[in-house]
């Protein structure tokens, strides 16, 4: 962030916000650092022992539980929890699993979703992922999840396991994962640590995602100083299923078997739970080393290690057991491992489950029940299967050489009972673990620096003279946040499975769902998805910022010709213990929910990541919004590149205002940050969307590109380079060319229409009251005297003539120059 906000935010926060506490760092899918494991010693902490030794001191604070939370656990159980129970409650009641700080605000999504919006939703918030009916018996499920902290500690594995986790979430809905996207935010590109973090995270997404055989169809790469010590790694996945095959996590049916399958359970990703063994041992009053093993220490990283091959066979194996109808309920193992899977399955079903931990296949020998229950070893799933199907289920796992073991069964006891070495180590009401965690009404306070920030507008900044605009275009398109992302996206497989219709750098990715490879005249339905968020806009006005993220993702989807159908989100914010952050969060949630209600598309699910801060300075509030759309005939999709038809007219749709606060220009040229973000006009976005969808359906548009950061200049350059064709632009003389070229006003798109369709299209715009303006023509260049074609160029008449070669060099050169 530019200095001005560093100061205001910094000074406002240093006294208020402490560094992350041990509790924060135990956020279970975001473990940090390495842990020490101490053998527990001879005695197992059983339920019986817990009842008999009520006063044994337990390390609940180190595990992130507050005193009152610990007391509540004692009330629930009528005794002190065992080590294993304490481990389960502490991870399941963590911020990440229980949403204890965000719950009260997230409820607003429910209250703003109308029955009409809900009509196409088969599953919503609360499930592993939301599901939307897209017609003809097909449904789609999609979700974004964060893996921020591990990716800073260990960039490659952090990012890799982030992809693995979201894919299992989609799989657990009974869907075949069909595409992934990734939303990456880093510190300054030229910062020293970026040389470690950026290539590592990109290689992790590439190495894991490519090996899974899922096309990467888009995402975001953004650089800002506020992410320097806390990069954001969000991963999205789209899955497709027949509506009838929808599976959810529940364990109905007393006597049904619980099967754990996939990788073995090891000591990786255990986070802080291992303090238990040592503390309890010490609590026994015995000297360390008692029993000859108490002092033995093993060290393991608490960031999990991914095995994409194991995940790939897990996917195929799981889809085969779904197809064969062998599954009653299913749950992926992610954060909180078996603690989460068993308690959630049990509470969502008949209400009881009996598990024998000795049946869990282990990677390490000496593992305590607490460690087995908390392990976040990757590539594991938990299925509930009727007894008569168990043999067939195991046979399918055998075919794919996937380890599978019956670890327990569903009961009607209303209790989750877990045995180890023939003794009961867990005996709890499952709902109290999975769903009845603490809920906090954190203090919410609009920060005192907000007014100063908004008062400091870009109005006073020096603007370029017309003759400087050409040079400004060259400089802007080469800036880290506007330059080509191909250094990143060329490391991702976008072709695998052969259904990718659009991928980066298109406005939205499109994946084909229904294929007719015998006759391509039959319409083939597709899914479009785009994700967006401008953290600077959101800092200036969190409510508007979230709506601007929604508006841009919506615009990106409609620009390809797809009709928006659902919304998901990944809300990355700072410390919930900072009232200013909770204000940003609550404002962003309300803005997003109200915006979705206005656009008439439901929020089907989401993810919250808090405590994104470094040395007391929070990241820019970053509510990443994903919009999913449906296109009835993928062959009608609109592309970005011009020059597909000879003689295209370029039209600018939407109104351009003088809006530069929080813009790329203000940031790149002046390092300025302040004022108010661009005006939000969702009615205009909806109208624009209807026009673009109609234009694509009726074949009136040959290319289109959304205007966002960098404004019209950026969009024109990308349309020319993508189509490898030049253009002649004539800006209206009565308008300021700088504002026309660089303003970031929303609800705008540039479309290329064939001459033959121009009148029909512009008349449609006029009738629908869609503002439009003719700004130029596509110009492939005429052959000169000697027959060789002219050099292709973007010619902005009276401003600058920029050859596509120099534009490409400027646009594509930046990231390779920094990262090799």
């Amino acid at each position: 962030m530019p200095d001005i906000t560093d100061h205001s935010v910094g000074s406002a926060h240093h006294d208020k916000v402490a560094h992350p506490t041990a509790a924060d760092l135990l956020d279970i899918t975001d473990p940090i650092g390495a842990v020490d494991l101490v053998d527990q010693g001879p005695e197992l902490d059983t339920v019986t022992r817990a009842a008999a030794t009520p006063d044994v001191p337990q390390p609940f604070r180190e595990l992130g539980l507050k005193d009152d939370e610990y007391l509540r656990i004692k009330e629930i159980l009528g005794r002190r929890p065992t080590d294993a129970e304490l481990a389960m409650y502490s991870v399941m009641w963590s911020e990440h699993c229980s949403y204890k700080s965000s719950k009260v605000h997230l409820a607003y999504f429910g209250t703003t979703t109308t029955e009409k919006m809900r009509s196409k939703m088969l599953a919503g918030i609360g499930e592993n992922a939301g599901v939307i009916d897209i017609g003809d018996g097909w449904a789609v499920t999609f979700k974004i999840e964060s893996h921020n902290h591990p990716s800073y500690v260990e960039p490659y594995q952090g990012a890799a396991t982030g992809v693995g986790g979201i894919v299992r979430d989609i799989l657990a809905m009974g869907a075949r994962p069909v595409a992934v996207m990734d939303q990456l935010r880093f510190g300054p590109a030229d910062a020293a640590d970026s040389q470690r973090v950026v290539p590592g995270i990109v290689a992790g997404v590439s190495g894991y995602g490519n090996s899974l055989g899922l096309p990467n169809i888009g995402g975001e790469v953004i650089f800002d100083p506020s992410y320097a010590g806390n990069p954001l790694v969000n991963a999205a996945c789209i899955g497709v299923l027949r509506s009838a095959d929808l599976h959810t996590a529940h364990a109905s049916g007393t006597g049904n078997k619980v099967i754990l399958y996939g990788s073995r359970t090891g000591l990786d990703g255990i986070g802080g739970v291992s303090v238990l063994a040592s503390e309890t041992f010490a609590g026994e009053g015995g000297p360390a080393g008692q029993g000859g093993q108490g002092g033995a220490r093993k060290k393991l990283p608490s960031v999990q290690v991914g095995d994409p091959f194991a995940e790939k066979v897990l996917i195929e194996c799981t889809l085969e057991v779904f197809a064969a109808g062998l599954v009653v309920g299913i749950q992926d193992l992610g954060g909180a491992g078996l603690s989460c899977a068993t308690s959630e399955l049990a509470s969502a079903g008949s209400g009881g489950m009996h598990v024998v931990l000795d049946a869990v296949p282990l990677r390490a020998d000496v593992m305590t029940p607490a460690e087995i229950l908390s392990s976040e070893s990757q590539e594991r799933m938990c299925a509930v299967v009727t007894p008569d199907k168990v043999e067939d289920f195991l046979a399918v796992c055998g075919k794919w050489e996937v380890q599978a073991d019956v670890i327990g069964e569903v009961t009607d006891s209303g209790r989750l009972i877990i045995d180890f070495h023939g003794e009961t180590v867990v005996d709890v009401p499952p709902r109290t673990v999975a769903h009845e965690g603490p809920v906090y009404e954190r203090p919410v306070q609009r920060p005192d620096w907000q007014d100063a920030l908004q008062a400091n507008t870009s109005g006073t900044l020096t603007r370029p003279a017309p003759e400087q605009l050409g040079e400004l275009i060259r400089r802007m398109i080469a800036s880290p946040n506007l330059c080509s992302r191909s250094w990143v996206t060329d490391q991702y497989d976008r072709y695998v499975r052969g259904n990718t219709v659009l991928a980066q750098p298109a406005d939205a990715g499109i994946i084909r769902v229904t294929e007719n490879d015998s006759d391509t005249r039959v319409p083939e339905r597709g899914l479009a998805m785009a994700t967006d968020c401008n953290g600077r806009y959101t800092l200036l006005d969190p409510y508007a910022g979230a709506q601007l993220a929604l508006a841009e993702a919506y615009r990106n989807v409609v620009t390809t010709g797809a009709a928006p159908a659902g919304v998901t989100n990944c809300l990355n914010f700072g410390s919930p213990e900072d009232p200013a952050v909770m204000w940003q969060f609550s404002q962003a949630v309300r803005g997003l929910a109200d915006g979705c209600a206005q656009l008439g598309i439901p929020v089907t699910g989401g993810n919250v990541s808090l405590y994104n801060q470094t040395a007391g300075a929070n990241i820019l509030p970053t509510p990443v919004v994903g919009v999913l759309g449906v296109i009835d005939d993928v062959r009608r999709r609109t592309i970005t590149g011009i020059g597909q038809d000879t003689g295209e007219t370029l039209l600018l749709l939407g109104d351009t205002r003088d809006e530069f606060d929080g813009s790329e220009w203000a940031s790149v040229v002046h390092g300025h940050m302040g004022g108010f973000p661009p005006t939000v006009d969702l009615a205009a976005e909806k109208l624009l969307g209807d026009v673009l969808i109609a234009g694509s359906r009726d074949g009136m548009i040959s290319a289109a590109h959304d205007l966002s950061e960098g404004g019209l200049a950026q969009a024109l350059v990308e349309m020319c380079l993508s189509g490898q064709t030049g253009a002649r632009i004539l800006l209206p003389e009565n308008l300021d060319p700088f504002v026309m070229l660089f303003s970031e006003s929303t609800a705008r798109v540039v479309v290329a229409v064939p001459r033959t369709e121009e009148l029909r299209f512009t008349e449609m715009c006029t009738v629908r009251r869609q503002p439009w303006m003719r700004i130029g023509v596509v110009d492939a260049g005429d052959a000169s005297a000697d027959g060789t074609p002219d050099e292709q160029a973007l010619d902005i008449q009276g401003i600058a003539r920029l050859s596509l070669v120099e534009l490409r060099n400027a646009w594509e050169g930046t990231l390779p120059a920094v990262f090799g």
Partner: protein
Amino acid sequence: MTQAAADAQAPATAARIGVITFPGTLDDVDAARAVRYAGAESVALWHADEDLAGVDAVVVPGGFSYGDYLRAGAIAAQAPIMRAVIDAARRGLPVLGICNGFQILCEAGLLPGALVRNAGLRFICRDQWLRVENTDSVWTSRFEPGAEILVPMKNAEGRYVAADAVLDELEAEGRVLFRYVGDGPAQGNPNGALRDIAGICSADGRVAGLMPHPEHAIDALTGPTDDGLGLFVSVQDWIGTAWTGAGTHA
């Protein structure tokens, strides 16, 4: 439907082309689709089987077989199905290895040379221009001599290497099938492959391997071109003429 695919509807009895799936194979659905687009019948073959189900040709598709945790393709080359493929190939069965499939054929000794880490040490996914250097092979007969085609390439270990003597022999016998070409942005040799080699074939022109992905270029909707169909149409011409030969239908 593409013209090439329409042409390929010709043979009264559609050729049956096997597509192998190993654990970790990723592009088998694409290869099967390419076979169908080209008018043939695709037959799914499983790594653990030892029988080729009487197919007329075999495609070994791309991916990361068994995770490629040893050398790429090294484990798959030892799979039961590969024993059958090697025997049949020695008897003249047409075999095409794409990407990981090419690596597997080299590891299995059906094709000379090896594929090592790209010069840039990164995974590269991009549309790549290739020149068809030999149009006499079973898999390239439908191409014009010297034709340049645009197909996706995507790999981290695609750099073809072999001893000079082997390279000279390949060149002399016209067994270099495809070469990286193009001088546009991000074109030309992408990974330091020796002599720009993207694909080669056996002495009898029936066993072929290449790193780029023709099966991803069968429809301009989902790929850069439909140039890739040429390989899948070519092999059917050969199968049609050799319908009773080659001893693969015993």
